[in-house]
């Protein structure tokens, strides 16, 4: 019988495997089926991983919302990489996706102020002809007060 800590390692790996390979993390039910875990244990593990700030869960369904740098739902930070479309939680996370996948990518977003389309490309582990500026509105020590807003 695995300990909760062992289960959490397995669940964390499965969540990241799923989001990296198909752009969406497993649901609790899919985790239960893929890992042969009782559904209640899969849900409890997701809650522990959220408490440990490894994942962020949706407020009502308690399914994964963020497996940083990936978003489980579409955002204004689309990342085209490895033949797939991923979504980042913010521009930092969007750039984190090619960093994590170790591949080239194009980030499609827009100016936070006026909505003008903007993009960034990563090729060969380098940012290509970057334009614009990135604004961090919330001081670092307050990011986890409301990570969705941050």
């Amino acid at each position: 019988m695995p300990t909760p800590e062992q289960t959490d390692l397995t669940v964390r790996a499965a969540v990241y495997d799923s989001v990296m390979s198909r752009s969406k993390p497993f649901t609790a039910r899919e985790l239960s089926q893929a890992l042969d875990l009782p559904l209640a244990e899969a849900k409890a593990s997701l809650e522990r991983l959220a408490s440990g700030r490894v994942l962020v869960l949706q407020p009502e369904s308690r399914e994964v919302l963020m497996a940083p740098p990936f978003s489980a739902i579409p955002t204004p930070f689309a990342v085209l990489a490895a033949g797939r479309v991923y979504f980042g939680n913010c521009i930092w996370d969007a750039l984190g996706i090619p960093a994590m996948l170790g591949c080239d990518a194009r980030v499609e977003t827009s100016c936070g102020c006026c909505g003008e389309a903007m993009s960034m490309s990563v090729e060969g582990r380098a940012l290509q002809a970057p334009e614009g500026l990135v604004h961090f509105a919330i001081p670092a020590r307050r990011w986890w007060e409301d990570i969705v807003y941050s």
Partner: protein
Amino acid sequence: MLLFRSEEHVDRWCKAWNLPRGAVLSPDQTWGLAQAWHSADRRDPAWRRRTVEETEEVFRGLGLDGAFWQLR
């Protein structure tokens, strides 16, 4: 964390939302932060979240200092 076309657009956005200006990074600094933060494989059982001290070291290594980047 949003991308803006220019400093003027950052200021306009802060004014519209009635928020103080935070920290402004170049895209290359943000890419450096993304690489430092997200390159590790979180499927690896050995992966763990950084401690406060380790996180502060990442910020310092990228030249991100000052009150905005302090964690305590």
